[in-house]
């Protein structure tokens, strides 16, 4: 009897909390959007209106006509998708080994993977550049692919390992009893159950490559090879940034991420409960 009002009250609380945070999430983004509509290069305005009275789409138009924006977009998509594919592939397999096998050097490997993240990136730039130059990776996307994958992998491996850990081992034992090889067990039983993990790994790999610019600035040496963040940074000069272009490009840059997330989030609701697996 008391159940119905109670659950309605809970739903209302859910909506209230979510709406509050949506507001907090969206407000600064609207601010960026507003900058992109302002004429005359104004980052700050004493006016709080979202759409300024003298709004214009000039910045967006300039982006497509005067800047090689589409070229940058293509480059970024190419690199990010390659990193996503490689990152997910390596993490899906490597994470499984870390979760299910107790091999020599397992713990050492897990720690070694983490150590890559422990150096301040700024100090790595110098040796990184020297290395890129020696490996003849200057101005190649391959250079970016290797470094971005290496940057994204530690998290992805650990994350996938965590997801495999949540899958009951009894399921695999059952499959082995039924005559599956270890590889078959992995591919047919564990992998499908770890789909939410794969989604997060994919999203993370994509984001790592999509928004990185420090390494990209070291590697890429031609304007036509730029990725989006580099192109975006090229609107920024100390004390004379093109805020309109910068903001417009930022809004456009985030659209593919939102699309990727929308496509992937369908699979975020999957795994054990969808598979109807009972222990």
């Amino acid at each position, binding site marked *: 009897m008391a159940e119905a009002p109670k659950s309605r009250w809970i739903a209302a609380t859910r909506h209230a909390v*979510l709406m509050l945070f949506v507001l907090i999430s969206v407000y600064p983004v609207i601010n960026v959007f507003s900058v992109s509509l302002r004429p005359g290069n104004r980052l700050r*305005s004493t006016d709080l209106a979202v759409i300024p009275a003298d709004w214009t789409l000039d910045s967006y138009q300039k982006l497509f006509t005067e800047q090689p924006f589409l070229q940058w977009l293509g480059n970024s998509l190419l*690199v990010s998708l390659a990193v996503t*594919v490689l990152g997910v592939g390596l993490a899906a397999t490597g994470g499984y080994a870390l979760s299910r096998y107790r091999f020599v050097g*397992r713990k050492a490997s897990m720690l070694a993977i983490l150590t890559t993240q422990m150096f301040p990136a700024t100090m790595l730039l110098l040796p990184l550049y020297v290395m890129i130059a020696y490996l003849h990776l200057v101005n190649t996307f391959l250079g970016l692919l290797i470094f971005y994958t290496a940057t994204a992998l530690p998290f992805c491996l650990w994350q996938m390992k965590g997801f495999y850990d949540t899958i009951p081992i009894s399921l695999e034992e059952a499959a082995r009893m039924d005559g599956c090889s270890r590889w078959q067990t992995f591919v*047919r039983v564990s992998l499908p159950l770890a789909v939410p993990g794969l989604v997060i790994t994919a999203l993370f790999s994509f984001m790592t490559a999509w928004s990185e610019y420090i390494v990209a600035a070291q590697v890429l*040496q031609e*304007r036509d090879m730029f990725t989006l963040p580099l192109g975006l940074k090229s609107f920024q000069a100390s004390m004379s940034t093109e805020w309109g272009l910068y903001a417009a490009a930022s809004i456009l840059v*985030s659209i593919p991420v939102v699309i990727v997330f929308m496509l992937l989030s369908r699979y*975020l609701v999957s795994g054990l409960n969808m598979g109807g697996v009972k222990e």
Partner: protein
Amino acid sequence: MNRSSSVLLVCLACGVIAVIGLGATGCSNWSTASRSGQQVITLWHQMTVGERKVLDQEVARFHASQSQIRVNTLYKETEELRSGFQAAALAGTGPELIFGPSDSLGAFVTMGVVQDMSPWFDQSRVAEFIPQGLTFLASPTEPERPVLVQIGDRVGNHLALVYNRDLISSPPATTDELVTLAVKTTIDRDHDGKTDQYGLVWNFVEPFFAVPFITGYGGWVFDESGDPVPALDSPACIAALEFLVSLQTEHHVLPANCDYETADALFKSGSAAMIINGDWSWGDYLSNPQMNVAIAPLPIVSATGKPMGPMVATKGYSLNVHARAEESAAAMEFVDFMTSAETQRNFMAKLKTLPSRKSLLDDPLLKEDPTLMASALQMNNGRAMPVVAELRAIWDSMRPHYQALLAGNVTPAEAARLMQADAVSTIARLNQDIQPNSTGLILKLVALILTVTLLWFQRGAWGQLAHDWNQNRLAYLLIAPSLAVIVLTIVYPFFYNVVLSFSNMSLRNFQNWQVTGWQNYQQIFTEQKFFVVLLKTVVWTVVCVFLHVVIGLLLAVALNAPLRGKSIYRVLLILPWAIPAYITALTWRGMFDYEYGAVNLIANQFFGLPPINWLSDATNAFIACIITNVWLGFPFMMVIALGGMQGIPRELYEAAKMDRVPRWKQFWYITLPMLKPVLLPAVTLGTIWTFNNLNVIWLVSNSGEPSDKTHILVSYVYKAVFNLYQYGYGAALSMVIFVLLLLFSLLFMWRTKATEGIH
């Protein structure tokens, strides 16, 4: 083979194809790759978007004028150009040419990364340029022989007075008139005690903007000895700072705090009658159809009768020391073209830059343009920017005290004294020349012994590995590719850093650095500042990660139910993660603005709270950084928690419901433990990332403002390395960071058993 198996194989295959395919694209290794016998040269420049248009036109004209040389231009932001050029020099490569202001040249010459251009520049041509146009410096190896390190194509980069003609009819000639005019144009329209229009604004952050006041009172940043000895504690300097403060506290014509963007916004919106700004900004104001603006030279200081003189810098081309003979020749041909009278005239016509060639000074184009004339007049009052590496130390020492002065936290005399003291110690540090001592030899020995012992004790491991290989072959095959990628990218930088941390690599020993011993570590642990910053970093990390996880979990719980509009919520909530952080962080900085920022306005309008001085108070600025970082990071934790919750069997909750277990207990005893394997890696890595998060601090607090009090360890390292060229010290500090994080991870993994499964 079933579906997911084929998906995985396709993934791996695509990866391999991508590696091969991407390797094949654009294998042009720097500029040496020449297509059909052409010489390709690369130019790194610092031109703004507007300037780049003219640059492109001129490069096209150069290409049309000859067919042998092709120029590839690439924009690099000031710091990027500097650090990138230095890194390239270490690898023995880099662009043939760089273009920019003469700021960094002093350091470049000391490091030996730029080449003498005089072999390509006939002595007779020197007379064609005004004296500031060409930069000759003493060679670091032969001090008597001057080397030509920059050929300028424009001079300027100077400040002048820009005024709104709708508010001011004629510009002030003296500072007394300036004050009178400013008082008259400072208006509180609605008499609410809040000023609506200011008489005068400028950038309160960069001490570059204080220089005209100092010169107007007869002072200068260095003394007159000719050596770079700071002279910031002079009576003239104190008088100038007193005048600055009087504008704020006595005449009330300045805003309470004002960075570059705020000053710009105030002036553009008509809320400031006058602004002091540089020649790079004038075009924007003059071309604004809604404004009626003019440029005037800065006034004469009434107390001394001297004009306020800004710093004047030359911009021009420098040649990389690693450019080979034929590349240098081609590059110099391009430089000749770009510094020719015709090209300079084109730049002058389109961008109102002042030329470096004498012949152009009488050009009608210049004589008949009021802006160019005002600019030329102002430049004649100016003083050339000293081309020495020490200038950077001057800015670094002035900045915090200049900021504190205008925030009302320090008296002019005290500020001048602190500026001078800091400048002396910073310059000493910049020129530090560590000599190898006995510890260097000991270290090498210890390293050798350590390696040998390790190998000796690990010899058994190889046998074990060989044995284990037979049992866990699949595991090794699965993990090997990942480890290979990681090892490939980390091993070299890691050992490079270890060696560097024991070395004396710095401004004085850049290309000829050597291992000297543990002096860098000694320096770190004897400074109190290190421990203060460390404490701040720990607070920063703990607060940020805690809030990331709590908010992320809260939202994931709220979302994890059949809910109307769920997918819309989900997408909107990841926006902070989706939009590039470098613009949202700057937006947040704008939102924390004292007068116009949304945070204060909302707090005031909805909750009636008094405005908070977010950015010029050290604690508040730190809180502002934390708020921004929490905003940036919670969506990531939310997505992970949401993903993890899908793995929790529903039966557990159903059983709990049957037993009438309250919801919070379900969360505590079912959700949290089941999330542990998924959440732990995120928390471990989140901690490491937050600890090493440079961006937010750098952008929100504008590199450590106010007064370098918001630093965390990484931003502290960054400043040491990039402002003072202390590569050895920076490497040692990052080794310390590395060890701290390693210890944390070990402890955390051991306490939470994060490497183990839950089953």
